[in-house]
């Protein structure tokens, strides 16, 4: 009995050794063995069983005759061989099964089992192990097999199987800018457990764009800027990001969140919108079906014809300024002392001209490299689309005061990179129209406007405004029963002022908010007039509302007489208007010191006043020129749409002489 147990034990050891040596390299061989007629194997098993049974019965007799022992030994060795063969065969079968289902974890578990068995066999309790019956040993082998097949619940969890981006969105927002942010804020305010999925092509979470042409350039702390923060005029530090990343839910588990949330997918674009099936397709092929969708795709900076055939070398010296990365890249250029030329006389171009000139000057004061800042435009003056010509020209003088060289009436005809690596821009100067003039600089910034992103119109079957561009929506910002559009990309119907498309920050806030609310079931039209503002350096700033097209008839009232030197104070009304805008406006108030009076009869002193824009004797737009905290009055006048004949009386409402 003892002997046969020992041989069986030896055979187990054998089995392990054989198994290890045979497993991997001989896999295919064993596979063949299995594939081929299985009968030899079964024979092995049958004979082994018989022999096992036989040896058990044989060994029960304890006759110790020598000759019998020798024969017995031979029989034992044969038994051993057969047993080894059978067990190896078994081992081969489920090794293959193991390999088929193999995962590293299972192999680890199985080899752990092996090592444990090996250890126990080498241990002092060898004798204890040897007392194990065959049944127990087979049981061990079966355990080993189960381990090999067992699912590991810890490793393959639900999260592993859940896709990174959901395939369904209750509220889908295409775009991750200001209008999108305002919309999801509003959706969540009206639908407390809303699940909002935002698909943004930006690589940053929603951020504010206005500071990128103003405040950030006046922030002298590089460490602060690298944290995506800036200093306002009142010294207060603010982040470019409206919400800290903590605000946003995990996109992956968004649909499982009981209280919903806002999940933002960065770096992805929606390339196809199917409104038959309400499915949006991403640029990586992923499809998302949705209940309600907001298109807030904004716009792309436009370029100019002269740059269309630009070489790569020229392109590397060109910036189409729009986002955070453009700021950091341009700041590096400016700080290196480069000469920068800004093309474009609108808000962005003019603000950048002032801001860059300021930074270059400050760099120079500190003994750091500083270059020349030039602004070019085809128009006669800055912001000429809004400001009446005389005021636009006066504004140009103020930009020149800031240190930028402004060339007006410039028709750009060519651009190239010259030998020393600089960019040469060729233009026609109306004062010398017969020859081509040149301006050389190290870097060029193009700020000639944006093109609304309406690529999705085709696949979605949505109408585009042929005059103003953008998706055509109704007064409630709706394009279809479950599709809304807000922000720069929306051509909407303004009940008071007609069909418009507005590219201002406050409009993105107002329209995003409205669209968001309507997506949760409201039916409100665009009613609350949005505003806009601009700062041309610390001395000139204005707030405006309504239709401020310089081609309209205008009546302006300017303050005559010595203006006071008092600083503008924060008005609680201005603060409460739009929380998002107010900080900017507030900062404006504090920094706008009035220029000293040049004299009572100075005709050209447009330093403070109000400009009224008229359509059929009704005021449709107002510019508050260096006059702050009166936007509510302006809004009321536009809302009333009364016919005005006496503008002196109207101007009284603004109290422009007082701060």
């Amino acid at each position: 009995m003892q002997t046969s147990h020992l041989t069986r034990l030896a055979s187990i050891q054998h089995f392990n050794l054989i198994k290890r040596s045979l497993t991997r390299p001989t896999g295919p061989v064993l596979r063949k063995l299995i594939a081929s007629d299985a009968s030899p194997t079964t024979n092995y098993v049958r004979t082994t069983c018989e022999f096992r049974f036989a040896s058990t019965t044989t060994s029960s007799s304890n006759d110790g005759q020598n000759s019998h022992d020798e024969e017995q030994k031979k029989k034992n060795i044969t038994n051993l061989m057969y047993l080894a063969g059978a067990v190896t065969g078994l081992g081969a079968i489920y090794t293959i099964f193991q390999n088929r289902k193999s995962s590293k974890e299972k192999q680890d578990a199985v080899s752990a089992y092996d090592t444990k068995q090996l250890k126990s066999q080498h241990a002092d309790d060898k004798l204890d192990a040897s007392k194990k019956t065959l049944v127990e040993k087979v049981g061990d082998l079966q355990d080993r097999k189960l381990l090999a097949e067992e699912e590991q619940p810890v490793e393959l969890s639900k999260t592993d199987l859940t896709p990174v981006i959901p395939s369904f969105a209750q509220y889908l927002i295409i775009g991750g800018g200001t209008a999108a942010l305002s919309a999801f804020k509003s959706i969540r305010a009206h639908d407390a457990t809303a699940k909002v999925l935002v698909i943004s092509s930006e690589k940053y979470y929603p951020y504010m764009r206005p500071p990128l042409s103003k405040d950030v350039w006046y922030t002298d702390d590089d460490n602060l800027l690298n944290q995506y923060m800036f200093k306002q005029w009142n010294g207060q530090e603010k982040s470019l990001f409206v919400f800290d990343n903590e605000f946003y839910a995990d996109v992956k588990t968004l649909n499982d969140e009981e209280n919903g949330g806002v999940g933002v997918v960065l770096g992805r674009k929606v390339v196809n919108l199917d409104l038959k099936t309400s499915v949006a397709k991403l640029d990586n092929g992923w499809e998302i079906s949705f209940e309600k969708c907001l298109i807030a795709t904004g716009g792309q900076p436009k370029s100019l014809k002269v740059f269309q055939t630009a070489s790569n070398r020229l392109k590397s010296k060109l910036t189409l300024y729009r986002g955070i990365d453009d700021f950091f890249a341009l700041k590096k250029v400016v700080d290196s002392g480069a000469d920068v030329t800004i093309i474009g006389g609108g808000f962005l171009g003019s603000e950048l001209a002032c801001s860059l000139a300021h930074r270059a000057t400050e760099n120079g004061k500190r003994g750091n490299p500083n270059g020349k800042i030039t602004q070019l435009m085809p128009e006669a003056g800055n912001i000429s689309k809004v400001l009446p010509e005389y005021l636009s020209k006066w504004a140009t003088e103020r930009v020149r005061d800031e240190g930028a060289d402004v060339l007006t009436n410039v028709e750009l005809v060519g651009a190239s990179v010259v030998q020393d690596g600089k960019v040469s821009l060729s233009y026609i100067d109306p004062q010398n129209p017969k020859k081509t003039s040149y301006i050389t600089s190290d870097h060029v910034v193009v700020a000639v406007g944006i093109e609304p992103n309406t690529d999705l119109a085709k696949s979605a079957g949505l109408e585009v405004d042929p005059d103003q561009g953008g998706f055509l929506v109704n007064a409630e910002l709706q394009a279809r029963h479950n599709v809304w559009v807000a922000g720069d990309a929306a051509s909407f119907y303004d009940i008071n002022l007609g069909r418009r498309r507005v590219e201002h920050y406050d409009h993105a806030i107002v329209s995003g908010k409205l669209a968001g609310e309507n997506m949760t079931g409201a039916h409100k039209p665009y009613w609350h007039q949005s505003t806009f503002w601009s700062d041309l350096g610390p001395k000139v700033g204005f707030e405006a509302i309504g239709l401020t097209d310089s081609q309209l008839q205008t009546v302006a009232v300017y303050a005559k007489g010595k203006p006071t030197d008092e600083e503008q104070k924060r008005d609680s009304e201005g603060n409460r208007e739009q929380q998002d805008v107010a900080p900017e406006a507030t900062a404006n108030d504090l920094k706008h010191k009035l220029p000293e009076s040049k004299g009572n009869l100075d005709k050209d002193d447009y330093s403070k006043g109000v400009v009224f824009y008229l359509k059929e004797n009704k005021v449709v737009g107002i510019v508050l020129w260096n006059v702050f905290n009166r936007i509510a009055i302006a809004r009321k006048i536009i809302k009333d749409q009364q016919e005005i004949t006496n503008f002196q009386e109207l101007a009284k409402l603004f109290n422009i002489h007082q701060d």
Partner: protein
Amino acid sequence: MSFCTKEGNGKDKIMFLTKDDLSSPSTIRHKEDEAFDPWEPHGLILPNGSINWDCPCLGGMASGPCGLVFRRAYTCFHNSSSQMKGAECMSDFDALTKCFAKYPKLYGGKDKSNSPTDAATSALVDGINTPK
């Protein structure tokens, strides 16, 4: 004293007016506004007494991850009629504080620029003080 000019081929009229010219009250009468214009944005408390969760004054507090908790707390506070307003809402405010603690960067201290807590607190005070 004051004078007018016309620029831009008569399209743009310019007036220079002194302080005296603009001192007397204006003869322009504004149109009367509706008592409750459903299309106009409103403050924290709507004319019908309910809370406007989309008020810019809340700075997104009702929209964020602690949105529901905040609403529960503030609704309780708003409806509280006891002398010490909000006395019975301690558990709700407790839950709110716990939620805030989970998102320190969002609802953090005063030096954090994106703190809606201050905005909301002042909004609460305004809400109490508005005579409606």
